[in-house]
């Protein structure tokens, strides 16, 4: 047994007491869906875990109606203090059931237990704890005094961080006084349904949180529903575009957190050992299923060979396998569909002339797996340098000057995140200034915190999640009629009142 071989150390599944089938969570209770139910499987073994209900348009109607009733009768009338206490309850219940949630997440999503246990679930609790404290302090959210909730929020989340994305969506929405209908991704519904049980345990008023499961058509019905005041979506840029078109012309407020193709820039004076760890964390964390993953490594030409050699050494020590094993570094790819996409783009990389290196690791017989992969000799025109692969595949490009690094980093329609590695503080700040990205990590990567705003520039979407900024996505300024100095105009054409709902008057008027 070499130093790299560890005895299996699987986390026990006995902590889970899953049901055989799950209904929709509407108005505080589980009920059958009217669409055709589907199976959720473990991507590591392809074994069935449970049957999940499928919400059709009528179910979406019911969920939105339940959220509307709860908003009007209960949640919008409740004091911020009490809303906050409910959120604190949820945070504590998540902590109490943390191990169970982590095991369920790794089982259903395929991510390593050490990530779900040490990153995802603790952040879920932190997110609810953070926003709980905001619920009775909304006057300080940056929208002026007495901001108002928007109403019913439709929230559609992806499969890469199922429970964490739920927390990013639900916690600020409820703190701000909205009620929600949330649809988890088709392949990762399980922890959202466990969360529904937590909502019951917290005795949250019925209808404040509704969770409906299903595929893309369920999500489309939800975001297009007339009874919805707010749409929040995390997922692909293609779907985000479609949602923006659906929402166009309505009074719905929209926030989108979409794809990315982040540059991770390594200068020749960077602390190489830390940088290599950061590069690995940047792209191989969560099998690369991360919208802000550092999928384009921009390394200064003079240290290219050294960095690539060290990366290959480091990747050769990563352990790929059972997500529930505590020693696993790389888990399963979430679905066959995603695996096919990674394979396709990776093959295109070879066809276009980049050189592929794959970490030597044994691929389990069942399930969906992709070994950590590095492409060198990548040109900016290559598809693997332009398109989001959303898998454990790193494209390596080089640069000579900081200006070239910045130009290459910004040469993408995306703008979600970026990384900078150098020992020179003034260079970090100057480069950070010029990167068109919503999150910049300097000498670190893939850090998340409920107090820290997260979101994109350009085609990576708009709006922020996290921090005070994240509250703004679920609030509108109070109406302050008559506060502005009015100008008498004598335009010849009479004003036509808009058929659509007028925007509220603005705050902060000049006096």
């Amino acid at each position, binding site marked *: 047994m070499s130093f790299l071989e560890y005895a299996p150390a699987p986390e026990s599944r006995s902590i889970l007491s899953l049901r055989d089938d799950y209904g929709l969570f509407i108005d505080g209770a589980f009920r059958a869906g009217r669409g055709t139910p589907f199976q959720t499987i473990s991507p590591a073994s392809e074994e069935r875990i449970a049957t999940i209900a499928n919400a059709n348009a009528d179910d979406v109607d019911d969920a939105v109606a339940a959220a509307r009733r709860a908003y009007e009768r209960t949640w919008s009338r409740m004091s911020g203090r009490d809303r906050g206490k409910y959120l604190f309850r949820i945070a504590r219940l998540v902590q109490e059931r943390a191990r169970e949630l982590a095991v369920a997440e790794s089982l259903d999503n395929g991510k390593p237990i050490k990530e779900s246990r040490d990153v995802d679930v603790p952040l879920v609790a*932190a997110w609810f704890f953070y926003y709980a404290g905001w619920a009775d302090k909304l006057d300080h959210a*940056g*929208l002026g005094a007495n901001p108002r909730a928007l109403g019913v929020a439709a929230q559609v989340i992806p499969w890469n961080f199922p429970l964490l994305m739920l927390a990013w969506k639900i916690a600020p929405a409820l703190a701000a006084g909205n009620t929600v209908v949330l649809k988890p991704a088709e392949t990762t519904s399980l922890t959202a349904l466990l969360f529904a049980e937590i909502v019951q345990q917290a005795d949250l008023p019925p209808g404040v949180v509704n969770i409906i499961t299903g595929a893309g058509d369920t999500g489309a019905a939800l975001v297009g529903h007339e009874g919805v005041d707010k749409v929040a979506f995390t997922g692909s*840029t293609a779907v*985000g*575009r479609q949602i*923006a*078109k659906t929402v*166009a*012309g309505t009074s719905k407020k929209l926030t*989108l957190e*979409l794809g990315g193709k982040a540059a991770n820039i390594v200068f020749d004076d960077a602390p190489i050992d830390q940088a290599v760890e950061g590069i690995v964390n940047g792209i191989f964390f969560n099998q690369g299923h991360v919208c802000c993953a550092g999928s384009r490594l921009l390394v200064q030409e003079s240290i290219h060979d050294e960095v690539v050699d060290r990366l290959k050494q480091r990747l050769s020590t990563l352990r790929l396998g059972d997500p529930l094993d505590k020693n696993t570094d790389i888990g399963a790819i979430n679905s066959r569909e995603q695996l096919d996409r990674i394979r396709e783009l990776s093959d295109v990389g070879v066809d276009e002339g980049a050189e592929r290196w794959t970490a030597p690791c044994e691929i389990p017989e069942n399930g969906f797996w992709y070994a950590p992969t590095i492409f060198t000799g990548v040109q900016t025109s290559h598809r693997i340098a332009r398109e989001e692969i959303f898998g454990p595949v790193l494209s390596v490009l080089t640069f000579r000057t900081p200006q070239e690094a910045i130009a290459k980093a910004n040469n993408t*329609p995306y*703008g979600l995140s970026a990384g900078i590695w150098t020992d020179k503080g003034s260079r*970090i700040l100057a480069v*950070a200034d010029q990167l068109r*990205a*919503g*999150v*910049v*990590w*300097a*000498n*670190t990567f893939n*850090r998340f*915190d409920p*107090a*820290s*705003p*997260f*979101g994109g*520039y*350009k*085609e990576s*979407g*708009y709006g922020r999640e996290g*921090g*005070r*900024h994240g509250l703004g996505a679920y609030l509108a300024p109070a109406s302050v009629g008559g506060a*502005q100095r*009015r*100008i*008498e*105009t*004598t*335009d*010849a*054409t009479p*004003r*036509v*009142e*808009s058929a659509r709902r*007028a*925007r509220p*008057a*603005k*705050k*902060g*008027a*000049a006096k």
Partner: protein
Amino acid sequence: MSRLAVPKTYKLFIGGAFPRSESGRTYEVRGADGAFLANAAKASRKDARDAVVAARGAVGGWAAATAYNRGQVLYRIAELLEGRRAQFIAEIEEAEGATRAVASAQVDEAIDRWVWYAGWADKFAQVAGGANPVAGPYFNISVPEPTGVVAIVAPQDTSLLGLVSTVAPALVAGNAVVVVASEHHPLSAISLAEVLATSDVPKGVVNVLTGSPAEIAPWLAAHADVNALDLVGAGDLDWVDLEIAAADTLKRVLRPERGPDAAAPALDRIAAFTETKTVWHTKSLR
């Protein structure tokens, strides 16, 4: 015996210059009483694209200027406008058929809004950004940055105030602007461009198009090098189609507003054309 007046030729304002429309087209502008005032340039798709190119070229320098500098440049616009107050009042009286008092009020308010927004330039980041107390050894700060090139359909019912109320907030954070002026009252927009051209606003930071918003706006809404679209004055256009076109490149969109409060001075008009950047840095004694 009265002196024969010398009328002005009104052209477009693109990249700091005053070209005619490349299409050669003009349209008649008439006052509220129906009297002929001028032939304004009728901007084409090509003019709109040229304006976007100029704005893209200018935005880097404007965004990189210090906030203090941007504040002074915006304040300088107010100074110059004050000096040409009489000209704008007369222009608005003629164009809108407004009384002297109403026209004066519009010009005064426009000047005061430049001053209000000028003052925000070096304060907005403090109000909109901040340090984030993350749970770890990291320095973490959020700052607002300009979105980039902002295309604006100015409010259509005023000559000057609507235009200023939409252009000024976009400039505060460092965006460059392509604005489509009021179709019926375009002359003050070009007179304002003369003020901008002789103030300290770098060329290309503001570009003014006159003509038909219904014709020009779709090209701006679909233009891949436009980052945000302010439809505040597009209420009478097929603005839903404009918002749908804007979705193809995920532009930030502000929807139409009507009435005297349209584009009223507000911090969120500045915020609407900014992106929050959050920078993390490790803390260590080693």
